[in-house]
């Protein structure tokens, strides 16, 4: 057997990057595994009960819910992204697939995305310069698809001072640049 492979983050570094710009802190996350879960046709109820039994939250439209191990957010009718710790779920399909069996289609999405967690005291001011999301009036746990500087993203509001953005992994540097420039413009 050959030697194993080393991993790089979406920003091309060995370790995730953090940027602090005034009151804003942008953290690249490299410790979260991600999979899509989509109900097979006619098996929606099975998916819901299997998820409930396994503690996988599958919330309603535009919602994110965190559980003790798994978190999930809605991305399309009968389709969710499920998060889990990377350390225990690197091969997340192998772990999640047995929970649903043939009732759901599971696809690994971990490395399709770059994840940035943004923390700060007035994130509404940042978000209004980034994308068409009414962050100030959104409830905690709001999750939506949006576009930031031409890049399709998911945005999740955890609190008024904490959000997560998932963007395409290949444009991680461009997305970080957009976040940095926007944050700096608000100082």
């Amino acid at each position: 057997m050959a030697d194993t492979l080393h991993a790089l983050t979406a920003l091309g570094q060995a370790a995730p990057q953090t940027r602090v710009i005034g009151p804003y802190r942008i953290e690249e996350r490299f410790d979260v595994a991600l999979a899509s879960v989509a109900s097979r046709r006619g098996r929606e109820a099975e998916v819901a009960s299997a998820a409930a039994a396994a503690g996988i939250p599958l919330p309603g439209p535009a919602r994110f819910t965190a559980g003790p191990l798994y978190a999930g957010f809605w991305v399309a009718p009968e389709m969710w992204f499920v998060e889990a710790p990377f350390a225990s779920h690197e091969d997340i399909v192998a772990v999640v697939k047995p929970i649903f069996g043939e009732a759901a289609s599971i696809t690994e999405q971990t490395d399709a995305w770059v994840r940035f967690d943004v923390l700060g005291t007035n994130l509404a001011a940042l978000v209004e310069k980034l994308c068409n999301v009414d962050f100030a009036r959104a409830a905690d746990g709001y999750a939506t698809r949006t576009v930031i500087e031409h890049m399709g993203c998911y945005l999740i509001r955890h609190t008024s001072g904490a959000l997560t953005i998932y963007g395409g992994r290949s444009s991680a540097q461009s997305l970080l640049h957009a976040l940095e420039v926007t944050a700096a413009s608000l100082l």
Partner: protein
Amino acid sequence: MSQSNRISGGQIDRSKTLSFRFDGKSYQGHAGDTLASALLANGVRLMGRSFKYHRPRGPLSAGSEEPNALVHLRSGARQEPNTRATVAELFDGLEARSQNAWPSLKFDALAINDRLNTFLTAGFYYKTFMWPAAFWEKLYEPIIRKAAGLGALTRQEDPDSYDKGFLHCDLLIIGAGPAGLSAALTAGRAGAQVILADEDFRMGGRLKAETLEVGGQAGADWAAAQVLELAAMPNVRLMPRTTIIGAFDHGIYGAVERVSDHLAVPMKGKVRQTLWRIYSRRAVLAGGATERPIAFENNDRPGVMLAGALRAYANRWGVAVGRKVAVFTNNDDGLRTASDLRAKGLEVRVIDARKGEEVIDTSGRLGLKSVTIRSNGKVETIACDALGVSGGWNPNVNITSHHRSRPVWEEAIAAFVPGEDGPVGLTAAGAAAGALSTHGALATGQAQAIAALADLGIAAKADALPQAEDAPVAISPKWYVAGGKGRAWIDQQNDVTLKDVKLAQQENFTSVEHLKRYTTLGMATDQGKTGNVLGLAVMAGLTGKTIPETGTTIYRPPYTPVAMGTLAGRSRGKEFKPFRLTPSHKWAEEQGAVFVEVGMWLRSQWLPKAGETHWRESVDREVLATRKSVGICDVTTLGKIDIQGTDAAAFLDKVYANNFASLAVGKCRYGLMLREDGMVYDDGTTARLGENEYVMTTTTANAVLVFRNLEYARQVLWPDMDVQLISTTEAWAQFSVAGPNARKLLEKVVDQDISDAAFPYMGAGAITVGGIRGRLFRISFSGELAYEIAVPTRYGDALVRKLMEAGREFDAIVYGTEALGVMRVEKGHVAGNELNGQSSALNMGLGKMVSKKKDSIGMVLSQREALLDPNGYRLVGVKPVHKDGKLTAGSHFLAIGAAPVIENDGGWLTSKVYSPHLGCDIALGYLKAGDQKIGTQMRAVNLLAKPVQETLVEIVSPHFFDPEGERLRG
């Protein structure tokens, strides 16, 4: 003398004196001044030259409707042309120059145009420059453009940055005059999310320019107090210096916030302007009204101004435009100007059209010196240095007509008011709705806010309104003064005169739309804010129709001009679009790779080695090394779509033209996708990873299109199918490993047995690399023994390094997109140049792939008679007969001896490369009946080359290299 025309009062900060320059001369003004008010305070009335006749001009207005006082603001790279001096906020060090004048503003050589006015009437260009036609573009137009014009661009890069943003609210209020403030207070107190935007740097609208009282205090003070209350409300966002430029769909409004225009240079890190997109649930237009002039002879001299503007300069800015003033009015509001100016100690003569009095002419070459008055048959000339004109007020209906609603005529105020069918969710209040008194503004602002919020289920209270004047509009329409030569200006920015409108009428351009285009009325940067209604009223008078019968043109966004830089925002230079980087990007950078943009991707085009000075050296080396031993290429950019579900196989059979249901688990197959019209639009391989699980690859260019089409098919065409889709393009780093030693190299890297027996041609399956899960596909684009190996993207960098290390003994190289292109042409594979949207599978020589045993998208229409023509285009290979013959993509096939005319056109070369393997140029091409012409000679003719390039070519099979495919099955 400094600020000789500055008088007492006003809302300027006299403790802050600002220095500025205009046309090289230094002046002083105060904080709170505009450039126009400061110049007027210094006795400067002449600020520009007119567009066509180069007539001396000063400001007509005191606001954004200004047609005349346009200047170059700032200098160097920050110079901005066509800036309205009436809204340019004064700052210390401001620098402005007049425009459209040479050699100087006071002596402008092109003022000769004014002498030639008899010739330069409406339609002059259309009538004069028709012949000869060829002269128009190269001679006439450049001369006309140079002579007639506004400001000039510096052609230097704008050093400032611009931004964009998104806002959301229950109620957007456009304009912060009495109506807007009243609406905002009502909605703000009700707890609604409110945005109050105003183009001025100080809120209050006309209240700042009046001496009227509101609630027992000066109007300006009342406005300031309300702004303070609103500023304290967390649910209200005040946006001064912000112009709502347009109403777009679904309650979306565009807004330009001038963040730094009031500063010499933006503060560090700050933008000059921000373009906001405001998502409103409801909107109230409280944009006020614009006064209109009356047309009389020489009514455009510096010092002739709208009466309300004279009043504004006196009341808001403490400026007397002149000491001896005349006011020509047809309504009571003009009398208010006279009254206010008298109160400031100025000498005022009123000429009231309602009493049979009118101004018939003026004098003063560079500024008003006198007016000639006809009063009930008696003519007299009086000396004066300012003339205020009031022909009534036009509600600012502009934004209500952005969705093509036509304003309607309201006789009582002799003006157009918003039509009923304006943008959904937008209502008007105050003067914009035709309520021209202060009380009317306060009352309608409150009422419209309550109504808008009631629609949203938000209860708002009608608080007692403060006391305010409620004078009726006493107006007797008067549009123009008859009896002159017609040199009475209607649209001052485009130099449209009464005579022009008369000429348009004589030549039967009587429709308002024709009038507009024939005379250019209302087509300048001010969109005819002061001239439109006047022009059509004159036309109504000339044709004997009423104004409603004559109708009106409508407005389009933007409300006021917007700089291109503002629209571009951050999307300029390297930030025009984001980049997508491949997993091997870092490694490729270290190797000095030359990158090429492929959509948003940056791909290695070639990777030069030391000593290589020409791209062809690198590409030839990469091709030869791959064919000789092994080459590696990052193919992550190809679209990857995960397709699962019990109907996945049946679904693939519908979207691919060829059969997929029979594909075994662990195998992959090349597939063609057709559009509904039967033309090929994409190709790629799809692997079956499990009973109900596939991974499809698409071309890089069509990754999004294919995914979108599959989603459409899944959701709309066959919603009953059990199919789930998701893109995995970026989830996997994928590398092609090609060449005779590909397997030997991979055997050193892959943990499993990948011998030909264990992993045959077109095999696909899970593998591991150093224990890391991966995928292997035995497919080939290059024609070599080849594989594509994939690992989770985070391991892509490690994989390419590992492959190169393991490949050292085989002299492995990494090749770029150019070498990839050479090898695919050598192998006869189609790519973007052949997948041109006009080619069928039959054209590509792949007709047999379209299965008629099943239905699939595009199958039926691919069998149209014309598409099955045996003499239609067929993909062929092309070689020069003489090895040094040069080929050019795009060249056309002509038979030997045939003339280069369309009737003899045989087709064209689609892709051309230099094949280091064959040692000559080779190409692919579409040739009529090409399959019947293999082995014949033709000419490849490039008619675009000078001289025309001709090469004698041999038509060959498109498979230049290993036609039997022995290498890839090896």
